[in-house]
């Protein structure tokens, strides 16, 4: 286990090195550098532009810039934002909480609802419920999240007036109840796609388990059906879901970005878009790296948990 863990960690580090090179290359090789936003400004002379370029270190060779960035990143220095000179780690840190709140609540909703729909669908395979759930999941996966957000705002904010149309809290109010009130709509919107994915996986995992010999044995020895399904089938079918939680992370993060833009949610997605708009390369790079680390950690953690939960899996 220890050796396997080390091996996996080594692979992750190699991947991260590759990821950083790709991210760096994308940002710096694309036309229109950080200064292109000033290109049309008449108050900026060429000397001004050159001076800013030198100050930001953008005049040096790309490889030197990359190695410099990498070296500082390894020592925990994520650089300074081009926009306001604040440390990138602080900028990202201040937006992290809102995003994680959104993702956590959505995931809880999605896992609960998705597993329930999936299990029920598998038990009553080809019933009306199962058919509707299968079709519903496919449609849910096809609805553009941002559009679903718009529709939710139209229904629940404009028409019914039940929920606020955006933001994380009312200005001047920050009570838990107010925060929760603002969280409901974006969390449900983000949970839609996630629920569909969980329901589909849960259904097929459950169907696979129900076909196993030990389920037949349990039935044969006269256990009540309820106990067979609850004690034997569901518990075993839930195991592979651990892996899904890890693999689902990139989709969840991407979905959070989309949801945040519609609900003006002050999280990482919003920050990412603003930083792109301002060509704030250190922040964009920081967010890209941060999300890559989270994605890798997610899949690593899922594998470890799976090994702990399922004694049949041995890591060697």
């Amino acid at each position, binding site marked *: 286990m220890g050796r396997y863990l080390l091996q996996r960690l080594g692979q992750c580090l190699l991947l991260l090195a590759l*990821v950083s090179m790709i991210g760096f290359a994308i940002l710096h090789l694309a036309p229109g550098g950080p200064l292109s936003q000033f290109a049309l400004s008449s108050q900026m002379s060429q000397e001004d532009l050159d001076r800013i370029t030198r100050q930001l270190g953008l005049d040096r060779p790309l490889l030197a810039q990359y190695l410099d960035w990498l070296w500082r990143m390894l020592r925990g220095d994520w650089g300074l934002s081009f926009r306001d000179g604040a440390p990138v780690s602080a900028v990202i840190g201040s937006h992290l909480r809102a995003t994680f709140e959104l993702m956590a609540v959505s995931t809880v909703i999605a896992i609960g609802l998705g597993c329930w729909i999936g299990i029920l669908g598998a038990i009553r395979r080809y019933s009306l419920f199962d058919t509707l759930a299968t079709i519903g999941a*496919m449609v849910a996966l096809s609805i*553009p999240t941002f*559009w679903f957000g*718009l529709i939710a705002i139209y229904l629940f904010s404009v028409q019914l007036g039940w929920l606020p149309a955006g933001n994380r809290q009312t200005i001047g109010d920050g009570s838990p109840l107010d925060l929760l009130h603002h969280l409901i709509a974006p969390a449900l919107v983000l949970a839609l796609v996630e629920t569909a994915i969980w329901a589909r996986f849960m259904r097929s995992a459950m169907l696979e388990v129900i076909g196993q010999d030990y389920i037949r044995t349990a039935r044969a020895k006269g256990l009540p059906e309820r106990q067979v399904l609850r004690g034997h089938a569901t518990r075993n079918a839930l195991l592979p879901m651990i892996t899904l939680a890890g693999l689902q992370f*990139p989709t969840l993060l991407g979905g959070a970005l989309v949801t945040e833009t519609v609900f003006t949610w002050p999280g990482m997605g919003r920050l990412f878009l603003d930083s792109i708009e301002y060509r704030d390369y250190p922040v964009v790079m920081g967010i890209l790296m941060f999300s890559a680390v989270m994605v890798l950690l997610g899949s690593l953690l899922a594998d470890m948990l799976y090994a702990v939960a399922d004694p049949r899996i041995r890591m060697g």
Partner: protein
Amino acid sequence: MANLQTLLDDTALVPPPAENAAWRRFRRHKLAMAGAVTITVLFLGSFFGPYLLPFDDTRIDVMHRFAWPLSGAHWLGTDELGRDILARLMMGGRISLSIGFMAMVIAVVVGTTIGTVAGYYGGIIGSLLMRFVDAVLCFPTIFLLLALAALVEPSLVSMTLLVAATAWMSVARIVEGQIRSLREQDYAVAAKAMGASDWRVMVRSLLPNAMAAIVVAATLNVAKAILLESYVSFLGYGIQPPVASWGNMLNNAQIYLTSAPWLAILPGLAITLAVTSFNFIGDGLRDALDPRMDIR
């Protein structure tokens, strides 16, 4: 030897007897058939519909701004500049569907090539290519696409290329897995033993057998590409107005949500309809082409 070679080619090229059975299975899949019909209608409507409409999609008519759907001459109403929504939905459909299709074609060609080479040769080339794929997949697709789209001059061609650039990795992964297992099959080993070149084995023996998986991945990719394009255009980094796309029609919709909700509802319905249809077709193809293939 020459005879053996032709014999070998023939066996590789004999259409699988399941072909008709596959079509039968696909036709039985009601949702997939409904999807196929819907896509056909959307295509015909988008490409021929504009010739039948009395309104041009970019004609501004300030006297008839914000006309409600079904309220007058404009069947689906007008937008904030008095442009006919139906005409814009049709022209937008051309753009969105074309990007979806073209991006899929590019993604499938690139992904299949890289996946085949990586799966066939394995070793250092294979693992280098696949680690590159893994690395790109570490970025959530949306993050990668937005970072690229914001830095590049937006146009139909650049949008297509960018969406393809963020979609080929999943195809590469699927194809690599298929080819790696097919490579060990008797017919591939036999072809190799009879002196067929690597290229010949890949193209004539392995790829035809991986086709089912590729076709399914391609169909699901169209759906994904349409979704990605719509989101990027919605944020203003994609197709630029006055050219319509389903995504950029939603651009200003949020501002007018209170007074003109149809501006938000209609284009989103078009996207959902198209994406759902492609997803159902993909599902039907999966069932039809390989009954053993498990759902994802």
